[in-house]
């Protein structure tokens, strides 16, 4: 077995190295220099003052989105509309948060709850279409992302929905009101870094989810549904109910991620306001995190941190003269390279099994 373990590690090392090499070649080929880019990435994500706190702050909503994706993925459903669910969740949080407006700490909870409801509603549309009308959820979730973006843009133009009143928005158009100080999630100052509350929320959620997915009946049902829907049906697992539940929950996680970005993201995300482009691809990246983590809740934590680091690092890359969108490319290559080793291992494993069985006969 040790042979296979080293083989696996070797495969990972080689393919990640290939991804980084490719990115490096790309930078060189377009007239840049890879070394300063790498330095900028490391400075911007870890070494610079206060930067690793920022990295964690960026990673937290990605992690929350990823955890939701893992839930629906376990049930064999492909939810890829987290970007839209996150936006609608945030919009719900803004709308109800400002209208209910209880005392500070309670209102923070209200924000998160309505974030979850908003995300679940948006995922629910796709879920109902899937289970009642047979529309593939892969597509409906995807198409709903654009609809969500337009709906939020509409809301931000109308004062009866999301737009702030003139006094509090100054000369800016299309922004929501700013959350008051006591309506924000707390931040923790550790070694000169601001760690937002969402980081702890994400880590705790990952731990709970890892337990729930592997050690509870609920988790077992989902896994059964994902692995073999027919067997699950025979065993009394309702595809409509359990599947739809998992789907709603995955949307709720994306919505909570959005609400947490609003109530605790600070300058990283809109500075406590809902603004155009608020989601800044966190939904997409969170989805990638879940895919790379291969549906393991705990594994999603380090992956989210790496992707968060790429994001915060990209802000520093611009100063090297290389287009900062290079980090998107690096991210894409990394994800592809992380997909290859397990696939190769799977194929080799089967080949070995086949060789064994033919050798016996």
């Amino acid at each position, binding site marked *: 077995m040790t042979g296979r373990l080293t083989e696996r590690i070797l495969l990972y090392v080689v393919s990640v190295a290939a991804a980084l090499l490719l990115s490096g070649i*790309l930078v060189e080929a*377009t*007239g840049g220099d890879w070394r300063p880019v790498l330095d900028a990435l490391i400075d911007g994500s870890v070494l610079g003052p206060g930067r690793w706190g920022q990295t964690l702050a960026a990673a937290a909503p990605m992690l929350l989105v990823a955890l939701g994706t893992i839930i629906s993925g376990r049930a064999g459903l*492909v939810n*890829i509309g987290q970007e839209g669910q996150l936006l609608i969740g945030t919009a719900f949080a803004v709308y109800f948060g400002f209208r209910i407006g209880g005392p500070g700490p309670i209102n923070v909870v209200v924000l998160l709850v309505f974030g979850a409801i908003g995300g679940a509603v948006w995922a629910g549309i796709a879920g109902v*279409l899937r289970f009642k*009308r*047979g*529309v*593939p959820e*892969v*597509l*409906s979730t*995807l*198409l*709903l992302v*654009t*609809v969500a973006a*337009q*709906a939020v*843009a*509409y809301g931000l*133009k109308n004062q009866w929905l999301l737009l702030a009143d003139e006094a509090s928005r100054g000369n800016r158009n299309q922004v929501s009101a700013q959350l008051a100080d006591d309506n924000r999630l707390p931040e923790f100052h550790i070694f000169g870094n601001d760690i937002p509350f969402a980081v702890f929320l994400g880590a705790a959620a990952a731990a709970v989810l890892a337990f729930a997915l592997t050690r509870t009946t609920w988790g077992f049902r989902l896994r059964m549904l994902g692995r073999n829907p027919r067997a699950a049906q025979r065993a009394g697992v309702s595809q409509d109910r359990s599947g739809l539940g998992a789907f709603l929950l995955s949307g709720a996680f994306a919505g909570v991620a959005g609400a947490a970005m609003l109530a605790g993201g600070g300058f990283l995300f809109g500075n406590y306001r809902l603004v155009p482009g608020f989601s800044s691809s966190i939904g*997409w990246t969170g*989805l*990638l995190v879940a*895919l790379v983590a291969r549906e393991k809740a705990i594994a999603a934590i380090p992956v989210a941190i790496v992707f968060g680091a790429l994001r915060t690092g990209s802000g520093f890359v611009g100063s090297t003269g290389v*287009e900062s*969108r*290079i980090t*998107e*490319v690096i*991210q*894409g*290559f990394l*994800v*592809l390279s992380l*997909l*290859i080793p*397990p*696939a*190769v291992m*799977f*194929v080799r494993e*089967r080949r070995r099994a*086949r060789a064994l069985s033919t050798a016996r006969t």
Partner: protein
Amino acid sequence: MTALIDALWEIFTSESTYIGAALAAGLLLFAASGELVAERSGTINISVEGMLVGGAFTAALGFDITGSVVVALVTGALGGMIVAGVQAEMSHRLAADQFVVGLTLNILVVGLAAFLEREIDLETSKAGDLEIPVLVDLPLVGRALFGQPWPFYVLYALVPACWWLLYRTRWGLEVRSSGEDPQSADVSGIDVNRRRREAIYLAGFTSGLGGAYFVFVQIGQFEPTVSGRGFIAIAAVIFGGWTLRGTVAGCILFAGAVSFRLSVQGFGYDINPELLQALPFLVTIFGMAVFARRVRPPRALAQPFIRGLK
């Protein structure tokens, strides 16, 4: 109310609406005709979006180097096939999940194209118009169907070619059986995963051409996004019940929604812009909600084939 009816009347009787619809339908048809073949082989090929953008980039690059639109179409098709190569080899040679690969490819290709676009300046222009005599004078749709830049007419050969390949050749039969019942196909000697890979390469070819079409017919310059058109093409295939006829109908319907939006703005009517932006997507979702149950998907759609595993 009468104002609305007047507005609709003006939009539906104006030639420019049909020209816009034909242009938009062209891109969808390029993407959807190959996507149909890929889906019949058993793959929901999410990476169409990436294939379109990849094709658009390589087409613009080809034109930038040679100055010829013909070369651009060829390099565009090649670019689409490169993206298809990654999708096909990873999901049907290795056993990586097809959605995961497709999604990653979309993000990677768009990022790559955006990065390279900033680094290199690409000179592009629109392809020349070619009017087909007599037919171009048909009322309403004449100019839309027969007075377009010449790459548009590639469609008149490509769509029937896809039909012929899928329904009238041995290869097409094998592709369809790979999508219906891969185990039986395998037993009768068909290399299922190979047929699926080939079908994806074909989708890459047509989508790559679509990317070139996007640059040289629709907008006249390179942009590193096709803003979800690839996804609408996939929806058109599903809407069309995995038949060519239905797919074409789906493309025309969704393109009509796009063109309607542009016309409304062009004629200066004041309809909520966000609603109009979302309209093609809403029409697509609604269309699928109504029709998805009435049609039967290929039985092994989106299921990987691994010999010995059922």
